[in-house]
């Protein structure tokens, strides 16, 4: 299986780097939702435009936005 973001070898949908980023992204949503009452899509856009977000997290968020339309 290839990573959906970078095309590297992967056991699941993502390589181990992007998998870690994906897990953090999912965990982070709970806190963003509590703080700002955002939808998942608004959250992903928020993460992409945030200067402190890691680049792997941004890549995963972009990939999710694309795939979820």
């Amino acid at each position, binding site marked *: 299986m290839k990573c959906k973001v970078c095309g590297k070898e992967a056991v699941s949908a993502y390589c181990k780097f992007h998998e870690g980023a994906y897990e953090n992204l999912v965990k982070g949503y709970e*806190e963003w939702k509590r*703080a700002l009452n955002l939808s998942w899509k608004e959250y992903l856009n928020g993460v992409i435009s945030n200067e402190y977000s890691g680049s792997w997290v941004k890549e995963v968020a972009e990939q999710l936005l694309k795939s979820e339309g």
Partner: protein
Amino acid sequence: MAGMEKYALIITEKPEAAQRIAQALDYGGKPEKNAEKKVPYFRAHRGKELVIVPALGHLYTVVHEQGTRNYYPVFNFKWAPRYLAERNAKNIRTWVEVISKLAQNAEEFIHACDYDLEGSLIGYCVLKYACQGKEKDAKRMKFSTLTKEELEKAYEELLPQLDFEQIEAGKTRHEVDWLYGVNLSRALTLAAKRWSGRYATLSTGRVQGPTLKFLVGREGDIQSFVPIPYWEVGAEVEIQGSVYKVEYEKKKIESRAEAEAIVEACQGKTGEITEVELKEFRQTPPVPFDLGSLQAEAYSFFGYTPRRTLSIAERLYLQALISYPRTSSQKLPPVINYRTILSSLSKERNYKNLAQGLLERAELKPNEGKKEDPAHPAVYPTGNLPENPLSDPEKRIWDLVVRRFMAVFGEPAVKQSIRVNMDVNGHLFYLHGRRVLEDGWTRFYEPYIKFEEVLLPPLQKGEKVQLRKVVREDKFTNPPARYNPSSLLKKMEDEGIGTKATRADIIETLYSRGYIADRRIVVTNLGFDVIEVLNEYCPNVVSVELTRDLEEKMEKIQNNSEKREKVLLEAVDILKPALEGLKEREETIGEVLSDAIKRAKIQERIIGSCPQCGTGNLMILFSRKTGKRFIGCTNYFKGLCKTSFPLPQRGTLKPMQKSCNACDWPLLEVRAKGRRPWRFCFNPNCPLREAREKRS
């Protein structure tokens, strides 16, 4: 060459040390300077004839006993002159020849290199190999400064033999490092070469691998970081005509709605002081500098990398201005004579009043730290004043060492912190003040103290205060901080890997191999891939625990509680399966690394974003027709941008990652043989272009 008369041959580590020792030991203070084939040596008279000859750091190194560079594993090694192993060490041959010749007429041998692992090993190898087995008869000079007094004392009180335990520990360290470095670097380099057919040096080492692994771990945390929103409430109060910032009781507010409610409740309200808390605290003087803390302080105040600080400190040591800097000690024993040092320093205008103030005290007792070093005390000024003008960096480091030395004898500083609690419509705000009551040791160390006073007017419980402004501040949590060369060195120290002498060089190697970049360290793709390969196929060689364990065993050799042979066998036991793992997967590893090298090479050619189209990157490209190089936009291949600029065809080009002061376009550095490197702005309309052309 020295005459036929018999003499004592004194071996030093570097030419500057030879000169210092010759001057100190010669009765007239004027030794005769000689040179043979450009190798300097000195003749001095001190009751008998002395010949003082320097090494040039390590003259001998570990080499593969026999065979080519194209295979691994290699476990058979020997010690040999460096010119046999390194291409750019040809001058070492002459050096060894001259020392060997001088040794022929010597009747006594004295080892006077620095008293630590490296120094002891340097002198030992010279005595054993260049002086034909004189290491057993040689005596040892032990000193921590190159001052005349200490050198004379060290010569009068020669140790009857060499410090063999220290030498054994130094030898083992070099041998273990060679086994790791040669085998692992060859495994990586050969895997990449066999896959791509191209040669590119890839290296790793016993300490280099685990160090890079810390960085990769931190980089992973940063790249996977999701910032979490939170809010702060900031406010200002007006008291007796002055405005002060106050802090809300809760530092992090987790929802915007809650923050907005607080702002609304406090806006335009008057508060009441409910409590004024005063606290006094004593700040003890700092402890004397060991090498690590000197490097950390120099990075913090001057931005010098650990390696730069070490090299400046070594120059100051060779000028007899400070004591030996490669020390782990935070102790200053009375034998160094505090009063003599302070009395000499008081002759310098800048330190006169401070040093005299200390000299007036009946007792001088330094505030020492816990760390000890059996070979040397902490870094301290010798009291000698510069004979020649110092460079600015030398002046700074010397000043830092002098002021730190005086500060450790100072009284504790007494400071006061004030917290005023104020209730505003049921919400609590804090006003903080701080001031110095007694400056104590800080007056000695003043330029290097970061403390800002916030003075408050007298305030009473029950007093009313007017809130001028209350605002909601939107914040996000920050990713973990990147390491910088100084914090990475501290991390290596804390983890117990590497030695005080090698840590700074290991960090520089990571930069020079292209595994890391920038002051706030960023791991490159190549760095990631190298660690990924090592982690997957031979995790033991990047294991911090195993590295620390080996480090501790090597330390034990120095105390005679561990044997060199055992440690070497243990290193081989770790390496053997690791190398087998790498060999088995050579093809896969080769593919990963070749790909990473290719990407790194492309990255090296990227100059910056294209100023014309704004979306592409400018890159150094080569014309298919003429083979000439030029700058082109990466969007050219998509048919979107045709921007191109000519480039000089001679010399090597390197993007500087800096912009031109006049036009803000990216700058390039050109290095050509026989010319000084020069900066180059390729913008044809750069306002400075005409001026540059006129100058050239």
